[in-house]
């Protein structure tokens, strides 16, 4: 059973959402306090954490920072609708995705499922499925999708699940631009919407982790009006 950790100071809301998630077949733990939530998230045993970034005590973003310092546990943020600052900061800090609050529980479950599905390797029309040792290599980047492991120039990369999925999609299409719509559908598991800067924010943090090539360029290039492209050697 998939374990979901709900961190939100609104106890009534978490109780309702807990019931809903339980009915959807998840096993749910609830924390109504930031520091305890962070500690619980780091205890292991959870597939995903749902975190409210608007908590008054120990700001949700601080909780996220605490979790990210030690773990790549997938984190879904609940943000205030229209508050871009929180959302972008959250994504930069390594949150996997966000849902504006208030949201319908259906939407929440859909996002949780999308992130969890991403934890499974991306399959291109079933071609590379079932090959546990499949390796993707290009331009000094090596990825083992089944083990969710990646290396850059021989060094292990620490990526969040969303970052891993995005990089995997780009690597599979190395040398060709991939549109934001495709990236969103394949890596985030949801259609791309206007105003949504998630892809850009995630890619900029991947770029930060990869550093620059010898010639000063980044291996991930933005292609005007077309999306992003991984440079092929």
């Amino acid at each position, binding site marked *: 059973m998939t374990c979901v950790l709900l961190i939100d100071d*609104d106890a009534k*809301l978490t109780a*309702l959402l807990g019931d809903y998630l339980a009915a959807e077949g998840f096993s749910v733990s609830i924390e109504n306090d930031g520091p305890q939530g962070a500690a619980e998230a780091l205890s292991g045993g959870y597939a995903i954490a749902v975190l409210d970034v*608007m908590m008054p005590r120990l700001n949700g973003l601080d909780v996220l920072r605490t979790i990210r310092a030690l773990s790549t546990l997938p984190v879904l943020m609940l943000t205030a*609708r229209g508050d871009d600052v929180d959302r972008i900061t959250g994504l930069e800090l390594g949150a996997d995705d966000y849902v504006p*609050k*208030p949201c319908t*529980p259906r939407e929440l479950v859909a996002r949780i499922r999308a992130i969890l599905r991403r934890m499974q390797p991306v399959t291109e029309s079933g071609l590379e499925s079932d090959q546990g040792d499949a390796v993707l290599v290009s331009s000094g980047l090596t990825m083992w999708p089944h083990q969710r492991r990646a290396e850059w120039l021989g060094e292990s990369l620490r990526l969040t699940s969303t970052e891993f999925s995005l990089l995997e999609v780009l690597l599979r299409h190395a040398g060709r631009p991939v549109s934001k719509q495709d990236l969103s559908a394949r890596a985030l598991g949801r259609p791309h919407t*206007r105003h949504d800067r998630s892809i850009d924010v995630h890619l900029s943090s991947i770029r930060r982790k990869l550093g620059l090539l010898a010639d000063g360029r980044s291996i991930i290039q933005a292609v005007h009006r077309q999306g992003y492209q991984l440079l092929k050697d």
Partner: protein
Amino acid sequence: MGRLFWKFFAFIWLAQLVGIVAIGSAFWFTARRADQNLEMAYGPGAGTRVEAASDILKYAGVEGFKSWSQHERREIVFAVDESGRELLERALAPGLIQSARQLHQEDSWSPIVSEVGTNGHRYLLFAAAPDMAAAPGDPQGPPRGLGPPRPEDTRLGGPRALPPPSITLTTLIASLLTAVLLAWYVAKPIRSLRFAFDGVAGGNLSLRVMPLIGKRQDELADLGRDFDRMAERLQASMEGQRRLLHDVSHEVRSPLARLQAAVGLLRRKYDREEPTIERIEEEIVRIDRLVGDLLNLSRIEAGELAGAEEEIQLLELLTDVVADANFEAASSGRSITWNERGAASLIGRADMLRVAIENVVRNALKHAPESRDITIRTSVDAARSTYTIRVLDSGPGVPDEELAQMFTPFFRSNHAEGTDGYGLGLAIAKRSLEAHGGRIFASNRPEGGLVVTIELPLPRTPVPSAG
């Protein structure tokens, strides 16, 4: 320097100049009178000179006397006729003439006063010397009596010279300086106050004027203190209002989130297609959007603008907006046509502009349901460096007196029936466009329907768009 400064400066300087001239002439007159402070000369030389003068007047006539007097400037012999007029028109104290007359009456043989009849007049001649008490401390000067007069006295009675230029210049500069100082002293706190008023009017309520005015203790400083107190109260009240709005919105959203979760559970338990539940969900979304709009509007009004400034290609922005609106319009079997003209770019906040234009198009879709077609026309007016977006519908239009009110929050028409009112969309559009230096207004089309016009200022040298 403001106009007030120059006015104060001009007035103060003028007053000073008037003062200087008045005091200067007062001194000049006094000095002149002091010069005239002559008294009868009784000395031994006086008789000789009066006698010589009498002879000259008698035999050489008035002209001779005049030329002698002017020539022999060192000799001071006056000739006064019956009416008290001096022959050379030199000013004389009446007392002096009086005492000369008296002396002549008492002793008509006195050598120092003589009477000469000539030219039909009788002239009384006498010598006079400056009163030594009025001009003391001249060691070279003659003792009391008729010595040769000092050189300064030679032009006795004639027009006195103006003060030397250096003194005039110094006085002028000093008066200029004090005028500048005084004007500055009064005008400066007023300038500070004006600066503060401007700032507060522009939304910067944290501005205080007392640090600019300093430690003055007068009515202007009191005014500054009053201003600061007012600004403080305004700031507190505005901040309170903003916080209230923010808190209310936030507080409304929490139960809304719970409600949404509860409805979700309800939906799971009962019929998933239950229309009542669907209705509840719709209304929750509507309330949520409204709360979001309220927050958005209060942010814009507070000057917190969303997003960063960037170069915006207007054609690209409109392509996005039109595509979206077309998608929305298609659900009711309508469409949006756009002339796709006017490539231009400007520096602004893309999200704010997009929402603004979107709201106008949405409004057209919502309030002109009969209108099969919504038309968008864009154009660049190079002469005025303005970008114009016109959104036209062929709906019922809006009563003329309500055209301006459409852009106020929650405006509800008295005439339209059954519509929701304009909500906040157009108000947000107006504020967002104004934040970009643009404007928005509505008018009725002669052929029926409404046209909403958006005008945005373009940079002076418009960058042609790539699109």
